[in-house]
């Protein structure tokens, strides 16, 4: 081998070995280094400062911050964390950088508003965010829908929700269900049917798979909540009539003349605990249920269902 060939071989070998060594070392360093502080740090929190620093390329900076927001929320949501300290500032920066970035309002509100671990539990900040969005995009009826949604689902302020749906229904091109929702808020706000209408509207009015998936999960959970409520009422009637807790749901089925034990949206029959509580067979499969879970139940990582 020539001298030049030997040098080439030695340099190439050294390059490959050094590359592998640096990758392995970096992995070791990552294991040693604490992550929590870096994950939660928002070094520049002023939207105005970031606007200036972006040299006029605000749109790109907003996309970067929106992606950061999605990653921040997704990571903490997946780990079932209960604190989302940087979520609202991240969203506010994103919106300030690009006030026309609609996903930041639509998804941002659904990140901010729900109680932990499904969201940050900050419905007031969600309202502020969407109102900022409406201020900059007054012709977008979907933002009114999202705002009414937060008032309805998280703040339970049905009057405000009705007003917002009504205002949104007057915008050119608004979906007809906005008028129905506005009317429903006044009369049947707390019905399961109203909630079902809201989530069905969310499903039908969006082409975005994440929104549709979220709506499907809520509809499935609503079905469980309604079934458990009805069955629990039937168990209550059984207790009143017989002076004891039924030993199984079959006793309730017979007493109520039902066709069989009702099943959840996955086809699994509901169960009855020893103390008379109606339970869903696999609570982990229903992300947003508020009923039908054992007292000691702790939710695992979220599992989404593409179809209802």
């Amino acid at each position, binding site marked *: 081998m020539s001298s030049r060939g030997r040098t080439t071989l030695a340099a190439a070998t050294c390059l490959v070995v050094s590359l592998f060594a640096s990758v392995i070392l970096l992995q070791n360093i990552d294991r040693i280094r604490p992550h929590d502080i870096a994950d939660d740090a928002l070094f520049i929190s002023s939207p105005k400062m970031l606007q200036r620093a972006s040299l006029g*390329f605000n749109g790109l900076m907003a996309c970067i911050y929106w992606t950061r927001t999605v990653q921040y929320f997704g990571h903490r949501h997946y780990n079932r964390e209960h604190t989302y300290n940087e979520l609202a500032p991240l969203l506010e920066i994103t919106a300030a950088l690009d006030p026309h*970035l609609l996903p930041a309002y639509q*998804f941002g509100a659904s990140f901010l508003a729900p109680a932990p671990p499904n969201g940050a539990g900050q419905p007031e900040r969600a309202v502020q965010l969407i109102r900022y969005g409406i201020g900059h995009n007054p012709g977008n009826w979907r933002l009114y829908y999202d705002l009414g949604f937060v008032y309805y689902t998280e703040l339970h302020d049905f009057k405000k929700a009705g007003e917002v749906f009504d205002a949104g229904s007057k915008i050119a091109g608004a979906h007809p269900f906005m008028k129905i929702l506005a009317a429903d808020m006044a009369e049947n706000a707390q019905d399961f049917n109203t909630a079902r209408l809201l989530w069905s509207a969310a499903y039908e009015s969006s082409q975005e798979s994440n929104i549709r998936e979220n709506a499907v999960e809520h509809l499935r959970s609503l079905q469980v909540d309604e079934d458990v409520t009805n069955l629990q009422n039937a168990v209550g009637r059984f207790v009143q009539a017989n002076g004891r807790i039924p030993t199984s749901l079959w006793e309730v089925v017979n007493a109520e003349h039902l066709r069989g034990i009702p099943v959840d949206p996955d086809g699994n029959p509901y169960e009855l605990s020893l103390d008379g509580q109606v339970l869903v067979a696999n609570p982990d499969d229903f992300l947003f249920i508020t009923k039908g879970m054992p007292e000691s139940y702790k939710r695992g990582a979220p599992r989404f269902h593409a179809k209802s």
Partner: protein
Amino acid sequence: MNARIAHIASNTFREAVRDRVLYNLIAFAVLISAAAIFIGEISIEIERLVVINLGLTAVSLFGVVIAIFVGIGLVSKEIEKRTLYTVLSRPVRRWEFIVGKFFGLAGTLVVNTFFMALGVFGALLYVAHRFYGADSSIFIALYFIILQFLIICALALLFSSFSSPLLSAVFAFSLFIIGSFADDLRGFATLAHGLTRWVATGVAYLVPNFSALNVISAVAHQQPIGWGLVLQNTLYTLFYTAMALSGAVLIFDRRDLK
């Protein structure tokens, strides 16, 4: 354009290509393809926005960097290599040399922008599967970016006509950054009083206004750009470029090249 200017311009273009300036297209292609493919995986609903924002921002920044780094060397390199003396010993006037260099660099940037624009539209087609009528305003954003390049080329030439390459780069970059804050400068001027107000207003109008030439965010949201703005920006660029080039010619014409 006379034949001598055209000749100098074509030589400048060829030299830039020989200096592998267009290699930046490879970096751009990797950047835009990666963005188109991966952003959809890690973000929500902004694939199209990212392709337009990132694509046009990259076109703009890559071009600005090329305009400055090639522009500042156009005169000094010729002096250093002593090729300038050969050129000027022929029937070529100094102003023709400056103007020819300007058109050569501008041509390089237009070609560069053309290929990058192809990349942006390709990536857009990949993520959105089709083009919309409103996407045509991307052409306007690209046109404004080219106008930006013309101003920077002229400024780089102006600085390189009397200063060293390093200082020229510093001056040109500083003006690019200050020019991006031109609107803020004007806002500051309106808040000031007395002499400060006059000075601030003067500076605000003297520095190039790059913020008016940046419509990337608006076209990403498919907002229409008025033809009035296109016309005014075109005229503004023509006059500003003419001003900077005139300055460069005035200085270079009087420069002692011995």
